[in-house]
């Protein structure tokens, strides 16, 4: 095409370019490259570019497409993008409008799984410390699965064939397709909330095998978190043996397939019955032995002397008592006699001791001295007595009453008690008492008084 000299406006030329591109490019293209300049706009649309060693292609992914992605695109990630090339006329810029994005090399789901695994592992959701133990003999088990799938039959058969004594309760949920994960998560929360009435010991979440897409609900975060939250222990039973889902990793116990649910949740009835039979035999054996031993013991006891000669026990002891008593009294008697002998000997010894005799001699001396002292005292006293009686004789001569011996007498006025010496010492009619030598008294009354002096 030769230059026609036509002058285009910007809009015209951009529009022309768009028309040329639209006409010549295939409607959809698939481009491989590395993500770069990744930007998730708050509007929800994503702006980024794909690049290789030499070139860069701007790209957009609209919100609705982005939300259906299972994995998280990031810078550096090798991807295969599918969409159409579009010219953005206002900017004169062409870009890839990607409606599909998938990791190059591995599947998008695989990548999504790895990303979810890494995220939840970092949070510790798979840690052993959160694993709840299952009760050894569950009574009620809740099963969260599709009512129409094969899994429900597989699970119930695997449980009931091992252990019929458990009540199974089915909570029908969708296990694949849009909203399945949310539905199972809601069912888990619902059952936990109602468990006061439901009294479930274990919950089983599962489904049969299928393509990775079919199992996808069991890799979703919402379900993983609901399993982690559950107060009731959760057993996962998803897909085939080789499929490991996020749910398997978060669950307290994993059953590799629905048909293995019974093995991990309930004991084997026949093993338990065997154990019961063993216990019964052991108990019966024990009881038999215990009774036989008790019987033997009884026989031994009955055969003992006590039962053969019941009184020998008493008589032997009586004899022993008598002997002891005799021995005791003999001993005491002997000891008393011995002590008496000892006392006697000691007394003899004491008697024979010299100081004892000396003491007696001293006593004799003391006695003699005492006698002499007494006699000397008596002599002195005797001398004194003579002196005293001589003095008394001389003293008696001086006694006024001694004149009475010579015929004198003493007259006393009875009224005054005074000796009558002068005329005035007695009045007429006074009683006067005359004392004689023999100490007798004469009482007389004064009849007349004669004053000789007056007369002369």
């Amino acid at each position, binding site marked *: 095409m030769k230059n026609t000299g036509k002058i285009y406006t910007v809009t015209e030329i951009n529009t022309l370019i768009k028309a040329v591109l639209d006409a010549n490019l295939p409607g959809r293209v698939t481009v491989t490259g590395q993500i770069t300049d990744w930007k998730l706009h708050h509007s929800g649309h994503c702006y980024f570019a794909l690049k290789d060693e030499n070139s860069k292609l701007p790209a957009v992914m609209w919100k609705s497409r982005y939300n259906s992605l299972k994995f998280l695109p990031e810078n550096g990630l090798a991807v295969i993008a599918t969409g159409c090339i579009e010219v953005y006329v206002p900017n004169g810029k062409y870009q890839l409008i990607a409606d599909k994005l998938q990791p190059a090399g591995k599947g998008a789901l695989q990548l999504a799984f790895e990303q979810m695994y890494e995220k939840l592992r970092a949070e510790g959701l798979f840690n052993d410390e959160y694993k709840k133990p299952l009760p050894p003999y569950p009574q009620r088990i809740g099963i969260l699965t599709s009512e129409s799938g094969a899994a429900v039959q597989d699970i119930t058969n695997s449980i009931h064939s091992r252990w019929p004594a458990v009540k199974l309760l089915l*909570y029908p949920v969708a296990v694949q397709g849009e909203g399945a994960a949310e539905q199972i998560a809601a069912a888990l929360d619902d059952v936990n909330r109602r468990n006061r009435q439901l009294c479930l010991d274990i919950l089983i979440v599962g489904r049969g095998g299928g393509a990775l897409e079919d199992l996808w609900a069991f890799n979703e975060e919402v379900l993983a978190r609901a399993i982690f939250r559950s107060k009731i222990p959760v057993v996962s039973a998803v897909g085939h043996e080789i499929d490991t889902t996020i749910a398997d990793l978060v669950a307290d116990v994993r059953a590799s397939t629905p048909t293995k649910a019974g093995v991990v949740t309930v004991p084997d009835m026949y093993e338990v019955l065997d154990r019961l039979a063993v216990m019964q035999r*052991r108990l019966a054996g024990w009881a038999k032995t215990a009774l036989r031993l008790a019987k033997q013991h009884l026989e031994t006891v009955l055969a003992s002397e006590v039962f053969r000669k019941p009184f020998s026990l008493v008589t032997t002891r009586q004899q022993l008592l008598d002997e002891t008593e005799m021995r005791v009294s003999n001993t005491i008697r002997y000891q008393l006699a011995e002590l008496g002998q000892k006392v006697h000997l000691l007394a003899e010894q004491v008697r024979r001791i010299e100081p004892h005799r000396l003491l007696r001699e001293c006593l004799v001396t003391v006695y003699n001295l005492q006698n002499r002292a007494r006699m000397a005292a008596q002599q002195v006293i005797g001398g004194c007595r003579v002196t005293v009686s001589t003095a008394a004789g001389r003293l008696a001569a001086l006694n006024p009453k001694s004149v009475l011996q010579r015929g004198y007498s003493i007259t006393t006025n009875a009224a005054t008690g005074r000796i009558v010496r002068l005329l005035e010492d007695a009045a007429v009619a006074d009683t006067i008492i005359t004392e004689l030598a023999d100490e007798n008294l004469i009482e007389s009354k004064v009849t007349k008084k004669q004053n000789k002096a007056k007369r002369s």
Partner: protein
Amino acid sequence: MAGKNEKTDTGKMTFEQTITELTAIVDKIEQGRIPLQDSLQQYERAMALIKHCRTILQQAEKRIEKISEPEDRKQAGQDKE
């Protein structure tokens, strides 16, 4: 405990309770730590527990119930419709 009480007791016991008690009795008897009289009672009790375990397993009915929605919520839903 009297025999009658024990019998009514086992009827209400779960399998786990039953087998726990049973194991305890067997251990105790085999260690010979209980007098003969007691252990004979325990023996009888153990036999009753074994019987109860078997009954639980035999009487089980292999049924499955649906628990998707509580009765009251279902009713409420129907009322709305």
